[in-house]
């Protein structure tokens, strides 16, 4: 799978998740990934646009991109440490 030419190793479909929510799903996926792997998370939660970039920065990973899709947002994150 790819997004903007980047190879995605894992897709997390968190659309419709209000609790635990897309960020918790992302944290779980990042913990279960190897350094260098790329995770895409799909979200319909308006809060994701602030909380996902905030957490990715604080945890020291890389936010490769945020893409508006049809009815949801895709966040692509690389595990860097």
């Amino acid at each position, binding site marked *: 799978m790819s997004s903007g030419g980047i190879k995605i190793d894992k897709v*997390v*479909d968190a659309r*419709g*998740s209000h*609790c635990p929510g897309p960020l918790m799903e992302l944290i*779980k996926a990042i*913990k*279960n990934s190897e350094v260098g792997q790329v995770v895409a998370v799909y979200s319909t939660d308006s*809060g994701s646009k602030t909380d996902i970039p905030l957490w990715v920065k604080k*945890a020291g990973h890389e936010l490769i991109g945020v893409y508006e899709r049809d009815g949801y947002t895709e966040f692509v994150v690389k595990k860097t440490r």
Partner: protein
Amino acid sequence: MKKIVILGGGTGGTVVANILARKISREAEITLVNNSPQHIYQPGFLYLALGEILDESKITREEEKLLDRKIRLVIDNAVKIDVQNRMVILSSGKQLEYDYLVISTGSRIVPEEVQGYEASYHFYSLDGARRLYEALERFREGVIAVGIGGIPYKCPPAPAEFCCLLDYYFTKRGIRNKVEIHYLSPLPRTFPHEAVAEAITKMMEKKGIHWHPMFNIESIDPEKKIVNSLEGESLKFDLLVMVPPHRGAEVIEASGLGVDGGWVPVDKHTLQYKDYSEVYAIGDATNLPVSKSGAAAHFEAKIVADRISSEIMGDEPRAMYDGRVLCFCDAGFRKAIYMDFNYERPPKKPRFSYLWYLGKQMVNKFYWSLILKGIV
């Protein structure tokens, strides 16, 4: 006669079995396998840890007494699920063939995945709750930190709820001014959903509970009594309550059915496992992005019972899970909030009230009868 095997007799498995027994016991033989004769009401762990319940028998019952008599209960541990050959193998060596399988094996806690976990306490098992109760009774002053050692975990609001209940507990003991309560939130807010987070944050601030954003516990230094986050921060504590990491049941991992820590991947509406339309998973065992809660397990159980019975009766299985979860969170001082949401509908901004506190008491009471029997 069709053979239905249900693995795990917790909330989800018991509800699914009881509904099926009511609907199709003439057309199907229903077997439920549970690895313990006891059924435990897990939300009771919170009350046990805080001394609101002293008698453990208040939160446990014999599983046999909770099941419709038409259900065959097998007390054994499932060690392998063979979806190709539609068979389950038990510890005793017994093999169970099935036409339909419902996996409701829940989750298990693995505190040992966090380095230094020995220095922490938790309320995620009977033993854990008992130990925590004793530690709290000994506690006179200092810093209590409550945090999360791994995602996903059961009942996402439970640690925030526990902080509010600690505030109530120490107030009742008359030493609240000597205790600092710190909530280590895995997220930038106190709760996943913004509207709910706003209400919980306000409540925590009112109670003087300190909260730390984006603090996912990575390790603990038992000597120095310091907890470290994977985001690079640390906090010194006197008593640490850590929600332990969770994994799916061992049988899921041993059978190669799980992903990302042993969670069974299922369709978010039909609850079927991959292309195996006769295999369902419900409750904590799944990898669905809904909270690992008794409420979700209960709603999913009703959907699965409906789908299996429709099919056995020769109809199309039409019931679909809409992601519904409802939950009551006790904030102490006889106040609680209530949330009800699904995949399409987010939770509304909650209000703390005595009414919802009573709602929670009703759930605690009617769990054994109305809920487990699948009547509501």
